[in-house]
């Protein structure tokens, strides 16, 4: 079984389509959707970390 089932693949493709002009948001959403699919229990903390990481990366660019 692939680590990314079909529906996640489709959601990720949709993210790329809709956020194509916003690369930072695109990679952030890809990351959180992959995490959601893994049913992470501590989502708030992980979200915060991811958000900070991506916003920071954007600042640096």
């Amino acid at each position: 079984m692939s680590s990314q089932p079909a529906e996640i693949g489709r959601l990720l493709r949709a993210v790329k389509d809709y956020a194509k002009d916003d690369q930072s948001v695109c990679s952030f959403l890809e990351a959180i959707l992959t995490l959601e699919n893994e049913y992470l229990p501590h989502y708030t903390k992980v979200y915060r970390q991811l958000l900070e990481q991506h916003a920071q990366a954007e600042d640096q660019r």
Partner: protein
Amino acid sequence: MRIERLITHNYRQWKDLDLSLDKRGDRDLHVFVGENTYGKTNLLNAITYCLYGTEFHLSIDNGGKGEPPLNRGSRQALSDGEETSLWVEILVRGNGPALRFRRETWFRKHGEAVHKQRSRFIVTRHTASGNAVLDEGPGAEAIAERFVPKALKDFFVFDGERLTTYFDQAHRERIKAEVQQMARIDLLSLASDHLSTVTKTIERELGKANPDIELARAEKDKADELLANCVAEIETIQSQIVSAESELHELREQLKGIPNVADLERQREDLKKKIESGRAELEVRLTEKFGLLVEQRVLVGLGVPRARTEKLIKEKEDIGEIPPSVNVEVLDRALAAGVCEICGQHLSSESIQRIKKLIGRNSVISVVGAQLHRIKPSLAVHNERLGQIQLRLFELREGIAQYSRDIADAEKTISDIDARVSALEGMRVRVERRDGLETALKDNQLRLGMALERKVGCEARAKRAAEAFGQVLSTLDDAVKLRALVSFAARAQKILDRIKEGIMLEVRGKIEKSINYWFFKLISRRQSYREVTIGDDYSLRLIGLDGSDCLNTVAASEKKLLALAFTLALHSVSGFNAPLIIDTPVAETSGDQRRNFAKALVEVSQDKQVVLLFTPVEYSTEVSSEMDGMGTKRSIELNADEIASGVEVLSNG
């Protein structure tokens, strides 16, 4: 993905089952035929029990009374304090390495009862290099979710009965929810919710740094909350309207042709009045009839003397005695006066002698003749009266019969009404429910209009608050990092919302296309309908040739086909290539529709594994003519002790 093997031990009737579902030829079709109670439904239950730890298809007769799923024989064989286990294993394979799902549950006997001790769910992944990786707990459950998500299981493993009632309930909400599930919008919604929680935490942190920000944030939160409440209220009202409309439709269908009790009672009163006036008319006619019968009897009693008199008159008329030729009275007067009354001359003695002679001869005859002559018209009147009486009696008899019939009919109708009214006592509750729903529906429509108006105000306030918050935020030199996070999260939220809308639209369109393909393949009356549409409000419509929606008037069997078409459409759009397993798939269909049903499922088996469980009656000629030779057919047998079932392969396609 397909199920290659199903192994059970001590699971309900399936004490020891090792079932290989090998694909034969280009179709992946597996037909099981078995009587009710032989264990068909428990094959479905074994699958959901293994994957989710729950049996979804329990009836009262099928373990629904709360007995543990442990095989009855194994349960009985346990001694007090002894432990045993049941397990179900499913071997699944797609293009990649195989997966083995195994759920084992241990039971211990205490006295007469058997109690569950513990359960273990393991997934073994066989990698390409031949290694086996074990997953347990949430990890194993996540893998089961990827095979068939629990939320979608009803589209993959279900009872055919589900299709019969599919569109009976409020289907708009259901379709919307199911399209959302299929589109996996839930993942986006989860992400959106979590992102919103994180953003609010960051905003609160910002508020702590500056009172102006805190003020603007509080207003923004308040405005957002009001808007969310308003939206939730609108959704609740809309949902109440949808379910009221659906229940109303159902009640109106049930009450169609059944007048309400008040109408029946009014009808009963009218009939009673009709009976009373009918009885009065009848009485008048019976009295008249009695009088006429008495008169008729008298007239008939006089019939013989009257006939004799008429005969006598006729005889006397024939011989010229009637009317009499000599008027004796005139002659008597002439003799007394001695003068002829006709010529006025004095009578000679010779004339007097001749007159006396004539009187002597004619006196008797003339008196009788004159009397007979006088009564002749009366005799004719009697005859005429008798004729009139007979005619009137005939009319009266007709009238009496008609009134008697009318009264009897009215009495029968009253008795029918009484029977219906007493049977309608149950209907009275429905009538009251219908009336109540109609009132509630009107109220809700009014409330909806007001809530929609309020929403416009809330949206404007939320927009103003968000702008004000943004403005205050832009003036803040400190907390640049937090500000960047809020702005970044807002952008991400916007994109998530756009993706949700876009995917829903796309999935809805795909489902609509697919449902049309399957529906027109399944139905026999293809010319009766134009298309199936899913509207912006997710209401499913079956459009007839005249452009009207026929969903509520279509026959139950065609509605079932529409539900199957919808299920197959959801399958093709879902992206999950999981098997389709249906218990009693063709119940309540017959003839061509049953054949089309079978044909469609054979077609589906070209793309995915299809497992169908039939009773021998359901596996009728229409089904067997389409399915025999197309896959593997097996029969399900129950052992003589009725505690273990077995499977025997009947034919391989």
